[in-house]
């Protein structure tokens, strides 16, 4: 078969379909920019569903992330979050959770304090925003309410008994039980499959019938995250009404439902917002010219060339392929952007895995200027039209600091701001809100 070729013209090309990439597309649409976005949104299915802003600072668990940001600005001013004012971060985060809620995935609005959210092994995590389906878990824990946690025959990696065993001392009202998921007897069961099964009314009713006799006065019932894919809040409300107890979800080992919901939600709604999206296609090459850049992509059936007036790079780290390491150095894969190296591979990781200082390799990444443009060794922008956001940025350790989503969202917002300013220097974005031809 002959390969087709296609050309796309756009204001902004977003490379990456992680949280940073989708946040960037979202913000760019709001600014009236034309957006084309590419990537492979696999890694997103790995998230717990919690959106962290800053949960840990210097090994200390934070109640007040805003306070933590203040300390971050004093101690590591080069941290991408430290370079942004609270207001920007708050606005970006709020817009993002609003967009998720509009998508049908209710999220709590970012507040003044971190929430204490549950982890599958019964430990807790400090995070800023959680899916509405998980919020009652925070409340139940805070009130030590009478709570029943359930798991399922054949579900691996999630043990209600482990959850209970690890919380029992602090939470006497907690109990656990195991059920057989309706219609999935005698087999291994997967959260994604259970979630899709719960999209049908009969399965929901059958599950509620199984839970009811176990209740024994429990006000809250915790389940692994399986309450449907597209409309978890509706499913939860309906099941709660039938059960007479408050339901909540607990994250599970990936690939997990909350991440798949985010992925599917974005893939469904971004095109509706006017974004040209291909979420299963990587960019192979980017060439910069006078008026922007040309991206080359090779699809299964066609070659695509994208002419973009600006590019936003949000390709993530090693797991997503934005960075690569050989035995001597770390490099950026798509553009060969400069990365300030450690002296040798010996300095990448500390001797002890859980050293509270974290591993230096996790802080290697792309250096950017105040406009979130990647810079060279001299500190000058590599290209006027290239911006970057998310985990690929240097000077942060999002895993240890519990700042993944916050970093992705806030840096995307700032990078889009700069890109928009560059593309529409007069300050007035072109009005494209009424385009209906796409």
């Amino acid at each position, binding site marked *: 078969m002959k390969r087709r070729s296609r050309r796309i013209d756009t204001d902004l090309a977003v490379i990456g379909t992680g949280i940073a990439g989708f946040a960037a597309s979202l913000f760019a649409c709001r600014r009236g920019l034309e957006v084309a976005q590419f990537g492979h949104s696999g890694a997103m299915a790995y998230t*717990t569903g919690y959106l962290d802003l800053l949960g*840990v600072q210097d090994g200390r668990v934070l109640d007040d992330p805003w306070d933590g940001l203040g300390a971050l600005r004093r101690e590591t001013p080069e941290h991408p979050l430290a370079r942004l004012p609270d207001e920007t971060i708050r606005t970006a985060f709020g817009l993002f959770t609003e967009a998720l809620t509009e998508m049908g995935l209710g999220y709590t609005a970012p507040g003044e304090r971190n929430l204490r959210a549950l982890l*599958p092994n019964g430990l807790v995590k400090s995070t800023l925003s959680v899916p509405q389906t998980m919020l009652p878990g925070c409340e139940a824990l805070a009130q030590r309410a009478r709570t029943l946690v359930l798991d399922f025959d054949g579900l691996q990696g999630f043990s209600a008994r*482990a959850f209970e065993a690890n919380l029992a001392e602090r939470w006497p009202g907690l109990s656990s039980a195991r059920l057989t998921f309706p219609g999935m007897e005698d*087999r291994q069961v997967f959260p994604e499959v259970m979630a899709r099964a719960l999209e049908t009314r009969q399965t929901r009713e059958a599950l509620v019938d199984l839970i009811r006799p176990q209740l024994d006065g429990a006000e809250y019932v915790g389940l692994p995250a399986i309450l449907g894919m597209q409309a978890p809040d509706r499913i939860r409300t309906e099941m709660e009404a039938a059960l007479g107890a408050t339901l909540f979800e607990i994250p599970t080992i990936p690939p997990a439902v909350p991440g798949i919901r985010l992925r599917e939600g974005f893939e469904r709604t971004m095109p509706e917002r006017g974004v040209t999206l291909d979420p299963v296609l990587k960019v192979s090459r980017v060439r910069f010219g006078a008026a922007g850049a040309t991206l080359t992509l090779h699809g299964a059936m066609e070659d695509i060339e994208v002419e973009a007036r600006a590019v936003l790079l949000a390709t993530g780290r090693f797991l997503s392929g934005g960075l690569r390491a050989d035995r001597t150095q770390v490099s950026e894969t798509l553009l060969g952007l400069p990365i300030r190296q450690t002296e040798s*591979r010996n300095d990448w990781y500390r001797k002890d895995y*859980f050293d509270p200082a974290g591993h230096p390799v996790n802080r290697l990444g792309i250096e950017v200027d105040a406009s979130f443009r990647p810079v060279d060794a001299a500190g000058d922008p590599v290209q006027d039209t290239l911006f970057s956001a998310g985990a690929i940025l240097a000077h942060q350790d999002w895993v240890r600091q519990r700042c993944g989503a916050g970093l992705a969202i806030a840096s995307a917002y700032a990078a889009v701001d700069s890109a928009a300013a560059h593309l529409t220097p007069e300050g007035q974005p072109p009005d494209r809100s009424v385009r209906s031809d796409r």
Partner: protein
Amino acid sequence: MNVRVHETEVLIIGAGATGSGIMRDLALRGIHCLLIDRRDLNAGASGGNHGLLHSGGRYATADAETAAECRREGEILKRLAPECIDDCGGLFVAVEGDDPDFAARFPEHCRVAGIPCEALTPAEAREREPALPETVFAAYTVPDATIDPFRIVLENVGQAQQANGSRYLPHTGVEGFDIEDGEIVRTRCRDHRCGDPVEIRARQVVNASGAWAEKVARLAGCTDVTLLCSKGTLLISNARVTNGVVNRLRPPDDGDILVPGGTVSLLGTSSVTVEDPDDIRPTIAEVDRILAEGAAMLPILNETRFVRAFSGVRPLLRAPGSESDGRKANRGFALFDHEDQGLTNFVTVAGGKFTTFRLMAEKAGDLVARRLGNSEPCKTALVPLPSGDALRWTDPGAAARDWYRRADPTDMILCECEMVARSAVDTILAEAPGAEDHMSLRAIALRSRIGKGACQGAFCALRVMAHLYDRGVYDGPDGLRQARDFVEGRFRGVRPVLWGAQMPQAELAEILHCGLAGMDLAAAEDEGRTG
């Protein structure tokens, strides 16, 4: 204080190949033993070696006696424990830059030691091992094989338990001996898990503590054991690189042997004299050097994905010149009866090779049996080893084969890289040697392939832990601590091979261990609590 007391005819200290071999030897003579280890089975060199069942070729040039010993013992083990052995054969190859004279003398040395050896043309060698480079100029076949060091040790212990109820006790370390009238009357130990003292009364005490044998002998006041501790490091690849063993045909040096181990390959080794056999770990410098040397023989190693490195300490007998170069030390073994040290019921056996463990056990067994007035002959060269259900999960590939064969839809896979099913873990919990009430994740991993695949414990640590809670093995935060311990331990070996395709794995592992399981914060909290 709560002192636990055990009584037995023979106490054996050190549960490596040698100690477990002695346990089997004595039990088959009808003598009751108690085998202890301060950690667990194969915690020393027996769990940190190359897995090469030497044909003797490696020693043919320098030490014909050791070479012949290896050949004879190799033949016995191939007959009695075929399930632990891959009789894959081996090659000795010289590549451009290696000394042609050294290579040319090799067949004659093999002949003297009685090792079958056949010359191949470079083309024949490359047909047999396509990964060999064009620069090969000499090649010889030898009957090298590989051995699963975990399985055979489990089988030693399993057979002894079955034969006469001899017992194995993990995490029990010797701290001192009470001696009266030239006899050890009591061995003072500590249970390293709970800190409780343990006391063992035995008629005979055997010190088979490998690189620690000198220390242990000194605890009994014996100064006759002097060892050289030689650390060696090995790299494990993600997939099997060659069909058989490939040795570099030159005087032993770093990175000159590649040994297949089921579905993987092991490249090594280095030899660094260390003062203290404790707290050793592979370093990046060693890994890079081994790889550079190995790639000269097999260039494909430059592109090979390595998932882990590990180190072991060879217990070598001191010999002239060996201080500066462990490779010059005697590879033979020695039996110390300690009678000139004034003790009549203490034996130390040290040195040797994994390959010769049975012979070492036979010699020690003969002495101990004679002292006990037992006249049963050694049976270990005649009685096959057992291959029980709880003993077979260390073999790469065994778990997967078993799972596919049974095709039981309710038996879920806990470790996806190595296909270890829930039922395998349950069998180990129920009946593997050393199984106990609160079995740690580390202990289960030792008896299976859990945590040994490409993900190096990213997922399986969490899954197996959840399962252990389900089985009631844990009922408090202890399980989380054990899981943390396990992944911390894995990291030592993972760290030096982190580049290329292992970087995304490591990143994902850290996200799961910290972000999803909160292990970093729990670790910090625990440390704060204990000051």
